[in-house]
Every structure is written in C-alpha cells, then in structure tokens.
C-alpha cells in the first residue's frame, strides 16, 4: 500500500476507566461514580446483550432467521451508550445496535421481524425513542441531526444519539450531518463504533487519521474511548449528551472496539482477516473485565453470576419462543402503509391482486 496510515494505538488519547484485566483506572477528563448495584447492573446488561446476540445467531443457524448482524465484542460500547441515554433522548441506530435497543427497553423480539423477513422493522420508534434500523449506510446521521434541530425548535431538553460504524464515516451523508450539526449547533452526539472492519475493508481504507480527529475539521470535539470498557463509554457518552443538552452542540465519540463476529451471518471473515487478530481482541473482552472487576472488589459472587446466567437463559428462551411465533404476513399486507393518506391506484391494485389470489383453489399462505 502506498499510503501509510496512522496506526491506532491505545495511547493517552484512548479514554479508559477499566483495563482489560479488570483494574479501575482514573482519567483526568472523565470520571464515574457508581454504586455496587449500578456496577452489577452494567454487568448484567452486558451478559444479556451478548446472550441476545448469541441466541439470535443460533436461530439463524437453525434456519429461523434469514440473517443476523452480530454485535459480538461490541457489548460494552452499546451498553455504555445505551445507559447514558435518558428516556427523553432519541437513538438513531444502524442495524447492529441490539444492545442499545435493549437498554432503551425495546423487547429484543421486536428486532427479529426484520431479520426473519416478516416485516421491514415495523416497530413504533416513538415508544422507546429508538428509531427503526436504517440499512443504507450513514443515512440515519442526517435524520438524527434533523431530529436534533427539531428539539432545538421545541425547546426540549432531550438529546439525540446517532450510531454508525467506521465504514459509514466515509459516506457523504455522515459528513453532511457533521456540517449541519456543527453550523446549527444541534444537540446530537455522533457515536461511532469503530469495530475495525467494514465487511472486509479495514479501517485504513476509510481514514488516514484516527476517526475521532475528523470532528475537529468540522469544528466540534471528538473523543476516542475504549469501546470495550463499559465504564469509560458510559462516562464519555454522558458527558457528550450533557454538552448537547446544554446547547454546546455535537460531539463525535469514537468507541474503539472490535467486531468479533462476521459482518452478518452470510459473511466469512476468514477470507480477509487473521485468526491471530481475533485472539488479541479476545484478551480485551468487555464482559470478562467487568466480571473480574466485580469479583475482585467484592461486588458480586458466584451466586450473582449464576443468577445472571439464569436470567440470560430465560431471556434466550423468550427470544426463541418469540421468534418462532412471529406470524407470516398475509400477502395482501404488502399494500398496507405505503401512504398515510391512501392512494386510489393502490386500492385498485390491491383489489385486483386479491381477486387473483382468490382465484386459486388453494391458498399458498
């Protein structure tokens, strides 16, 4: 490669409050003061989120889902961000933020319809402040920015968090969102999960500089945080949301993490990355470090961990049962909800198709 990119490092600019070994460290700019219960809750969140992901992956392997986008390895980034959001805050995810959904109170079964092919998402984003998954890369960052501009006009104290990945940071829409949010000082936090890979393209193909430094070019602060450190992410995310709420405008958070699984269940990462890289990142596992921290500091014992595992099993069973019972849509529903105000053309087409389907001796569905 002709271009030498700056290699990401875990130098002083990577905000960290919990080392991979489970040691608590201090940072000059960010701190976190939690009760034992709150630490335990974060651990539980991480385990639940991972279990959602592994159960969904299993369901895909068993033919119950057509596809699944795994967040394996990114649990801390999503729980840290998700738990920083208040109920009046709105999240604009990509299609991998099942952990953020969980934190916002969205039933994981709600997310499955899209991957099972029974709907296009279909949930009501206003319920939990969690927008539908956006599959076009980066588009949601503009939506988030517009929503934030709406909050400004409403005088609301809410804030917005836009989620996207390292690959998305190359998209025009993301850069336009940076322009808009900065010139209008909109209350939006850009949360980039840099998991090092955009399908098979490494970070070096998206940027010559660390992603968080991009923000400076647009005139707002950027910060890189250890994405596998739930405490650091929580602290940084809270701080950025507070900035947004008080009218100081956007922040770019680069959560430095790793996509332990494939891009989706149809991807084969062995074709483009080395197993050794995975091994390196296994040593930085987000759940292991929290477990070590809790154990070593007397915040949790074996009973607690077993109880959390049992809760995870129950959640998995709920997901499995929910998935298997998702109903197949009636074919005529494909005409529903195209317009809020209806359409004479669609009514006619629907009638024609209904008559056609009724002309067969046996229905297929």
């Amino acid at each position, binding site marked *: 490669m002709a271009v030498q990119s700056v290699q990401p490092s875990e130098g002083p600019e990577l905000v960290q409050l919990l080392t991979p070994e489970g040691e608590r460290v201090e940072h000059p700019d960010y701190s976190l003061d939690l009760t034992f219960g709150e630490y335990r809750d974060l651990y539980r969140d991480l385990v639940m989120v991972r279990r959602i992901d*592994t*159960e969904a992956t*299993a369901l*895909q*392997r*068993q*033919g*119950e889902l*057509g*596809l699944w986008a795994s967040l394996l390895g990114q649990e801390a980034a999503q729980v840290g961000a998700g738990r920083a959001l208040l109920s009046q805050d709105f999240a604009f995810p990509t299609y991998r933020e099942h952990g953020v959904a969980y934190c916002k109170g969205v039933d994981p079964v709600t997310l499955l319809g899209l991957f099972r*092919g029974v709907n296009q998402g279909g949930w009501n984003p206003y319920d939990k402040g969690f927008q539908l998954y956006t599959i076009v890369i980066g588009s949601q960052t503009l939506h988030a920015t517009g929503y934030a501009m709406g909050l400004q006009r409403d005088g609301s104290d809410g804030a917005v968090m836009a989620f996207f990945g390292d690959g998305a940071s190359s998209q025009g829409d993301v850069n336009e969102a940076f322009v808009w949010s900065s010139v209008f000082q909109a209350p939006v936090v850009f949360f980039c999960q840099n998991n090092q890979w955009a*399908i*098979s393209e490494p970070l070096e193909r998206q940027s010559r500089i660390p992603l968080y430094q991009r923000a400076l070019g647009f005139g707002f602060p950027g910060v890189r945080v250890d994405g596998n450190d739930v405490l650091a992410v929580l602290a940084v995310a809270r701080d950025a949301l507070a900035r947004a709420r008080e009218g100081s405008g956007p922040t770019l958070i680069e959560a430095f993490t790793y996509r332990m699984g494939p*891009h*989706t*269940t*149809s*991807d*084969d990462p*062995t*074709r483009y990355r080395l197993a050794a890289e995975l091994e390196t990142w296994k040593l930085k596992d987000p759940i292991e470090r929290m477990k070590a921290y809790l154990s070593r500091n007397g915040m949790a014992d074996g009973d607690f961990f077993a109880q959390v595992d049992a809760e995870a099993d129950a959640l*998995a069973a709920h997901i*499995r049962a929910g998935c*298997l019972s998702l109903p197949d849509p009636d074919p005529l529903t494909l005409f529903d909800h195209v317009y809020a105000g209806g359409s004479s053309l669609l009514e006619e087409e629907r009638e024609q198709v209904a008559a056609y389907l009724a*002309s*067969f*001796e*046996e229905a*297929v569905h």
Partner: protein
Amino acid sequence: MPTFKDFKLPDLGEGLTEGEILKWLVQPGDDVKLNQPIVEVETAKAAVEIPSPYAGTVTTLHHAEGDTVDVGSPIITFDVDPGGTAADDGVAAPAQTPVAAQADMVPQLSASQVPHEPGMIGSPAPKAGTEEKIEVLVGTGPKSGKLTRRPRKAPTPAVSPPADRTPPRPPARVSAAAVGAHAAELAAAGGAAEVRVLAKPPVRKLARDLGVDLRQISGTGPGGTITRGDVEGAVGDEVGTQPTESAPSRDREFDPATREQRIPIKGVRKMMAAAMVDSAFTAPHVTIFTTVDVTPAMELVERWKTAREFAEVRVTPLLLVAKALMVAVKRNPLINSTWDEAAQEIVVKDYVNLGIAAATPRGLIVPNIKAADKLTLPELAAELQQLVATARDGKTPPADMQGGTITITNVGVFGVDNGTPILNPGESAILCFGAVRDMPWVHEGEIAIRKVTQLSLSFDHRIVDGQLGSQFIADVAALLAEPTLFVAWG
C-alpha cells in the same frame, strides 16, 4: 414416551443448496442441550457450527462425515422426550418440526441450477469435481422458480372490457357534456360527431377497408362492442343516402392536374364485383329474349290495387311477374337449381328463395324472399314491399342475401327494355323484366295500342339448355299475357 424430531439442514443464509458434513460433534445416545454445537458443516471453505435446535437425546445421525447433504433434508433426529410422559402416542415416525418446516421452504435447487457468481463475498474457489455454489452477502439467496401452474378455480366469466367501467366518478369542474362518459349514453345526445363506437383496432381497420360506418352498426360483442362478424355482415347495409360517406371527401373530387377522380374499390362495390366476376367466368351465360303483350296482366294489377286483399300492401307489376316466375319454375324445376362443381352434382331445389335485385346508392344487392313459392299473393306483396324498403334503408341482414335460388331483376324502372343479366352466384337463371310500354301491337288481327314489355332470361348453359330456357321464359310470358293460365297451371 419418546418424541422424535428431525432437524433438516437449513439454508445458512448463503444461498446454500447443499453442505458437506465435516464433523459430528455428538453421537447417538448423547444428551444434548439447546444450542449445543452438534455438527460442523462446510460452507465456503469455512466450517460453520450448527447449534442444536432441541434439547434431548440424539437418536440417529442420518449422514456420515464427508457426506454431501441437500439443504432441507434431515441430518439428525432427536428424542426430545426420552422416556417421558408425552401425551401423544408413541408414534415412532418423527414429527414435523417448525425448524424442519422452515427448512422445507428452502429451495431444492440441484447444483447444476445454481448460477455461479464469481467475486461475491464468500464465493469458494471451485473444487475439482464439484459444482459451483452461490454465496450471497445478504438474504437467503435465489429461490428456484415454479415449474408447474397452481390449479385455479372454475373460470369466472371473462371480464368484458366495458364491464369494469362502472360509471366513473365525475371529475370535478368538468362540464356536463364531458361527464358520464359511456359511449352508449353519449350516443343519445345525438350528432354523429359525439357517437363513440366500441371496437378494437383490427375491427376498425376492417371496417375502414370495407367502407363500413361503425356508427351505423350495433355491436354483438361483449358490452356492445362491434365484432369482426358484425362488420362483415354489415357490408351493404350502409345508409349511404347521406352525402357524407365513410371515407373523407378527399377522394371524391377530380384532381385538377389530371382531371381524374379516383374512387377506392371497397365495400359493396367490391363484393358485387367479386360476385360478378365469379359468376360470369364460371357459368356459361346464354340470354334469350321475348316480347310480350302484358295488357291483361296490367289490368289485373290495376284491379288489385283497389282490392280489399291488397289494401295493406303495394301492388306492382313486379308482383305478378314474380308469381308468374314461380309458377313457371314449378313447370320447369330444373331451372331452379345450382351447379355444385365440388360434388359434381346439380342440386335441384324444391323451394324458391326468390331474389330481387335491388339498387341502392351503395351498389347492387340481391336480397331474397325465403320460400316465396309458399306465400299467398298478398303475403308476397308484403314481402316484396318490405324487401325493397329494407334494401333502400341499407338494413338488409346478411342472411337475406344468402341462399337465393332464382332472381328477378327489374330494369324496367329505369325505362330500359331488356338486358343480359349476370347470374347471381349459385343460381342457374335470372329473369330480367323490362319497361312496360304502350306500343302498337297486333291484337286480335288489328293494330292496337297495347302494354308491351320484354323479358330476358340468362341461364347457366351447363344446366339449362336452349329448350328448357325457352320453355321457361315462354311460360312466364304466357302467364303475363293470359293471367287465367295461373288458374290452369297453379
């Protein structure tokens, strides 16, 4: 009570159609937990671990390591209720599983049907001796198409095009003239320009070629549409009496440059010409003539004009000529026949469908009165009157122009004495009836002014020889000269 469940190899989201069992991670008899890895399956050179969809005991492994298995076929059976108290009878046959049902929906493409897409994420390098597989990044991959039709219910009546034309919502702010919109309704508004006919393009073209005005036809097709048959049957039915004819006026003027007028050959003229040619150049025509003093016949006609029996009808000399002809036919049956070339037979008819040549502005047509020989004279008079009126109105139905057996042509109305008429195709004789003139004649040995007319008879010399023809025309003449012969010969 054991409950058996099969697990079928799923499509692992890569458009997989088959997989190779690399390694079994469990053996028959093993207890497995939900999601416990049970098998490694090869896809795209990477092994995929499949987690168990059931908790239970492994009963059977259906394939050995190294086997290639089609997606959708069972690979392992579990007893999910080993030694348990399940309510269902111990039917050993493995039950359908929801997972299996899902896998059932997976396409069963044979490997040769799977298109190969090089360069896609995850595409394998082709192995020697194996078919190419398709891997796609998103989605479950291409499904195979249908190869047979699904059975339909009994067919619903074909939707005729105007049937779905329920009276449309009148568009806003459109004047009353435009609202409504059905051709039939608009026709009531009158005016040729507003009448819209329903006919598909090929029918319109046919109509144009034949010179038929679609506005004058009522359609017999679905919803009142005009069919091809309607157009063909209407040939010769044109009103034609209006100066506007179907073609625009551009072909009715003399071109000043050439001083020529070009009239398209179409419609009735075209059909008539074809018939003439057919007749004239198939049957050898001979025409014979006779001159007759028809004074008694004319006196009879005059008396009938005021007779009660004929009060409702018009009585013309043609009536008497027609009657005379039919009596003559009875005496000379062979004259009422047709030459069937194909069957090599002469077909003699015992009925007289009497054709009357009628001139209309559109051209010559020959409608006939069916079974005219069975009609009484008043009935015949009525039929003749109707026939002439209908022809003049251009409304003669096609059936009336078929099946004639013998024809009269009346050139007398034009003041012409006689002619050499051409046979109506399919007939063997045609009688031409000329003008009735006051002429000096030898009557009872003295010169007197008598009503004299000429009769000409053309006949098909293949069937009718000179003697028969002469005999026939002589009989007609005799009846007109001496009507009391009707009584003798009737």
